[in-house]
C-alpha cells in the first residue's frame, strides 16, 4: 500500500468545471457571484427542521426534563425568550460565515506555483467584523440589560425562604412561618417568593431551570434571589457549583401549589411531628430518639434535636431521600438508613447498625411523618 503525499500541481484545474445549470436560475453560474440575495430555499428548510426539532427536544423530550426552555416561572420565561433571540441571531451569523467559507471552497483552486497579488478586500473585514457586530451586539446588550433589570428581586414579596447549602443537602427555613425542612420547598403559584441563600460549608448553587436563573450559595455571604411560579407543578433543581464528592446527587425540588393548597401545607408543616399512631411506630420513635439518629437530625415533638443533617419532622411527605438520590419508599429508606454509602458514597451519614425489628419500626414511624 502506498500512501500519498501532496504533489505540487495535483490540485490545479480540478475545480474549474461548472456544473450544468437548470434553465431560469438568475445570475448565471452558480459559483460566479455570491450575493446576499442568493436563494435560501434549502437553507431555510434546514433551519426550520433543525430549529423545530431543537425546540421540541428542548421543551423536554421526556416531559420530566428540568429544561430551561420549558419555563414555568417568570425568571425562566424571560431567559427563554432571550435564548431564542440569541439563537436566531447566532444561526444567521453562523450561516453567513459558513456560506462564505463554502463559496471560497467552491471557487477556482490554486497550486503551489499560483500567486495572487490583488489588493483590497478589507471592506468585508470592516463590515462583517466591526460594523455589523457593533450594531447587533449593542442591540443584544440593551435587551440583556432590560432582562437583567426584570430579574431584579421585586421590592414587595410577602414570603421569604432561607435556603442554606450543606454538603450535600439543602436546609430550608421559612422564618416568618416557623417552618424548617430540607431538600424541598413549597411556593404559592403566582406570588413572588424571596430566597435568601447562604452556605454552611463550601460554595453551592441554587438552580431550578424551569423557574429562574441560578444563584450561588457562598459561606460568609447572603445572596438574594426570587422565584415566581406561573403554574402548579414540581420543579427539579440541582446544585450547580462543584461542591465535592456528591455534587452530582444534590437535587432540590420546588413545588408550586395553588394558594389554598399552599396555605394548608404551611399550616401542616408548622406542626410538630405526627404522633405515633400504633405501637410499632411508637417503637420506631424510640429507636430514633435513642440511636445516633438524634445526634444529627431533628424531629420536632421528639427529643431528637441534632442539626448536622436534614430536619425530618415531615419527612414522610418528601418525594425523595438524600436530596434526590432515591425516591422516598419504605424499601429505599430501609436501604438508605442501613447503609447510605452504597447509594451516595461519601455522604456524611454513616451506616446505621439497627436490628431488623428496630429498622421496621423506624420505617413505620418515619413514613407516617407527613
Amino acid at each position: 500500500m502506498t500512501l500519498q503525499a501532496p504533489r505540487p500541481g495535483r490540485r490545479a484545474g480540478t475545480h474549474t468545471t461548472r456544473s450544468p445549470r437548470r434553465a431560469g436560475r438568475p445570475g448565471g453560474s452558480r459559483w460566479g457571484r455570491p450575493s446576499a440575495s442568493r436563494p435560501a430555499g434549502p437553507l431555510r428548510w434546514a433551519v426550520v427542521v433543525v430549529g423545530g426539532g431543537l425546540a421540541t427536544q428542548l421543551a423536554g423530550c421526556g416531559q420530566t426534563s428540568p429544561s430551561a426552555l420549558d419555563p414555568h416561572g417568570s425568571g425562566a420565561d424571560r431567559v427563554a425568550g432571550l435564548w431564542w433571540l440569541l439563537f436566531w441571531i447566532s444561526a444567521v451569523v453562523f450561516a453567513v460565515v459558513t456560506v462564505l467559507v463554502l463559496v471560497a471552497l467552491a471557487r477556482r483552486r490554486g497550486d503551489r506555483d499560483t500567486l495572487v497579488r490583488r489588493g483590497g478586500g478589507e471592506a468585508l473585514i470592516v463590515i462583517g467584523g466591526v460594523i455589523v457586530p457593533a450594531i447587533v451586539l449593542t442591540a443584544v446588550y440593551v435587551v440583556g440589560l432590560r432582562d437583567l433589570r426584570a430579574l431584579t428581586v421585586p421590592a414587595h414579596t410577602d414570603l421569604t425562604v432561607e435556603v442554606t447549602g450543606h454538603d450535600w443537602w439543602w436546609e430550608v427555613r421559612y422564618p416568618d412561618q416557623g417552618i424548617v425542612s430540607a431538600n424541598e420547598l413549597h411556593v404559592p403559584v403566582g406570588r413572588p417568593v424571596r430566597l435568601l441563600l447562604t452556605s454552611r460549608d463550601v460554595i453551592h448553587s441554587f438552580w431550578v431551570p424551569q423557574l429562574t436563573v441560578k444563584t450561588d450559595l457562598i459561606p460568609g455571604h447572603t445572596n438574594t434571589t426570587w422565584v415566581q411560579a406561573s403554574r402548579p407543578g414540581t420543579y427539579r433543581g440541582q446544585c450547580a457549583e462543584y461542591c465535592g464528592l456528591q455534587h452530582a446527587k444534590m437535587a432540590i425540588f420546588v413545588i408550586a401549589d395553588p394558594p389554598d393548597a399552599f396555605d394548608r401545607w404551611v399550616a401542616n408543616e408548622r406542626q410538630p411531628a405526627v404522633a405515633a399512631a400504633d405501637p410499632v411506630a411508637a417503637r420506631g420513635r424510640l429507636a430514633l430518639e435513642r440511636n445516633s439518629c438524634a445526634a444529627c437530625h431533628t424531629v420536632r415533638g421528639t427529643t431528637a434535636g441534632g442539626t448536622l443533617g436534614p430536619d425530618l419532622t415531615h419527612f414522610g411527605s418528601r418525594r425523595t431521600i438524600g436530596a434526590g438520590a432515591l425516591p422516598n419508599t419504605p424499601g429505599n429508606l430501609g436501604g438508605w438508613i442501613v447503609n447510605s454509602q452504597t447509594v451516595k458514597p461519601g455522604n456524611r451519614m454513616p451506616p446505621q447498625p439497627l436490628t431488623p425489628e428496630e429498622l421496621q419500626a423506624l420505617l413505620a414511624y418515619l413514613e407516617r411523618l407527613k
Partner: protein
Amino acid sequence: MATVVERTQRLAESWTEAPGLASWFKTVDHKKIGRRYIWTASLFFAMAGFEALAMRTQLARPEEGLIGPGAYNQLFTMHGTTMIFLFATPMLFGFGNYFVPLMLGARDMAFPRLNAFGYWVFLFAGLLMNASFLIGQAPNGGWFNYVPLTGPEYTPEVNIGFYTVGLLFLGISTTAGAINFIVTTFKLRAPGMSLNRIPLFVWAILATAFAVVFALPALNADNAMLLLDRKFGFHFFDPAMGGDPVLWQHLFWLFGHPDVYIIVLPALGIVSAIVPVFSRRPMVGYFWLVLANVATAVISFGVWVHHMFAVGLPQLSMSFFSAASLVITIPGGIQIFAWVATMLRGRLVLDTPMLFVVGFLISFVAGGLTGVMFAVVPFDQQVTDSYFVVAHFHYVLFVGAVFPILAAVYYWMPKITGRLLDERLGKLSFWLIFGGFNLLFFPMHISGLLGMPRRVYTYLPGLGWDGWNLASTIGAYLVAFGFLATFVNFLWSLRRGRPAGDDPWGGDSLEWATSSPPPPYNFAAIPVVHSAYPLWEERFRERLDGARGSEERQLAGDHEVLRTSELDATPERAIEMPEETIVPLVVALGFLLAFGGLLVSQYVVAAAGVPVVLAGLAAWAWPRREERPR
C-alpha cells in the same frame, strides 16, 4: 580572507552541539527545545485525552458504576488542568520556540539558557502534578479550584497541594518563555523587518506573551495565598476570620480569562500563517489582524467577572463586564473575516493543513457565538455551570487550539522532520476528528439547556439527558481514533514520508528559506526583508544565496546572532550566544527540590533547594572570558 566554504564550516562548528547523552541535558538550541516541548505536551495531551475517554465512558449511561465519585472528581480536575496548563500553552510555545526565531530570520531565541530552563521546569512541574495519580491523590477541586472546598477545612489532603505547588512551579516556566518571546521579537529580527513586516504568527505570540506577563502573577498570588491558608493557617479565604472565598475567584479569573486567550491567540496565529500560503496570496487585512491580536489581549483583562455572574455581585458591575465581554467579540470577528476575505480573494489549495483550518473556521464561529450568549448576564445565569458551558468552551478551546495545532502538525512538521505526512491519512484523521468533535460536543448544548449541571460523576435516568450523553460518548471515541490516525501518520512519515525539501507549500515566511530540517545555525546568511512576505519577494532566494558571499551577512563569528532595533530592525551589533551548559537543568532541579519539599512539608529538603538555585544562578550570570574587559 576566509572563503564562503571556510565561513560556512566555522558556522557549522560553532553552532553544532556535541553529540551524545550529555548534550541532551545541556542543549540550548531552540529547535531541540521546541521539539521537546511538542513531544512532552503531546504526552500530556494523550493523558488528558484518556482521562476524557474514561469520563465519557462513565457518563454514557445514567448511574453507570464504572467510576466512583472520588476518582471521577480527580479525572475531571486533571483533564482540565492538564489540557490547559500542560498541553495547550506548552504545545503552542513549542511551535513558537521552533518557528519564531526562524520566522524572524534569527539563529536562536534571545535567551537560550532561559529557554532550556523553561523546558525543564515544565517537565518537572508536569511530572510532579501527575505523580499525584501514583498515590491516588490527584487534585480534585476542579481546574479552577474554588475555595472553601479546596481550603484546609474541606480538603486537608495533599490533593490540592499538588495543584497549588504544581502551578506555582509551572508558572516559572510559562513566564520565562513569555519573556524570551518578547525580547526575541523586540531585538533579534532580521534587518528590514520593521513592525509592519513581522509575521502574524509572531504578532500572536507577542500579544500572548504580554498577556502571560500580566495574567500569571494573579494566579501565582492566588495559589500562594491558598498555600499559606492550607499549610500555615493563614486566613485569606476564610469568611469567619475576615477573609472571603470570592477573593479566590476574582484573582483566579483575572488570570483565567486572559489565559483562554493565551491559549487561543497563538493558535489563531497558526491559522494566520497557513491561510495566506494555502490561499496563494498575501493576507487581506494584515493591519486589522495585528490590531485584533493586541486588542484581544488587552480587553481580555477587562472581562473576568463574566465567570462570576451567579455569585451575587452588584448589577452595575455585572453590566460593565457584560459590555466588555461583548466588545471582545469584535476583534475575534475581525480575525474571522480577515481570513475569509483572504480565502475569497485567493485560490485555495485544500491540503490537510487547510482542511483543518476550514473545519476550525466553521466550528470556532459557533463557539464564539455561544460566547456572545454568555456575555448576556441573565442567559449566562441560566446556563453557566451546566453542560451548555462545557459545550461552549470546548468549541472555542478544542476547535480554537487543537484544530490549528493539528494543522500545524501537517504544515510545519515537514520542516521539523524533513518529511511530509500522508495526505489521505491526514484527510481521514480530519473527518474523524471534525465529525467526532461535533457529535461529542454539540449535544452538550442540549443537555445543558435541559438542566444537566457540569462536573457530575453520574446522573439519574428519566431526565431526558441519556441519549445526548450516549451520543457524546460515541463522538469521543471517534475523536480518539482521529488522533490515532494522525499519530500513526506522523510515525509513518518519519520513515516513509516524501522528503519535504526546503519549501513544500510555496510558503511566504522565512522558515521556508532554509533546509528541512534547518541546519543548527538556521540561516547561512542573515536574511534582509523588504515586506511581510519575504519568500514572495522578487528573487528573494537568489539574493539570500548571494549574501553568503558577504562576511557581514554570514556572521560566521563564534556563535553569533544579530541584534537589531525594536521598531525598524536596523542592525545594532552582533551578540554572542551561550554554548550548551548544564546550568539551566541544575537550577530547574534546585527549584524541584524547593517545591517538592514544600509539597510534602519537608522543609529541610525545600530549604536545600535554595542554595542550589542561588549557586546555579550565579554560575549562569558569571561572564565568559570573552565578556570580561581586557
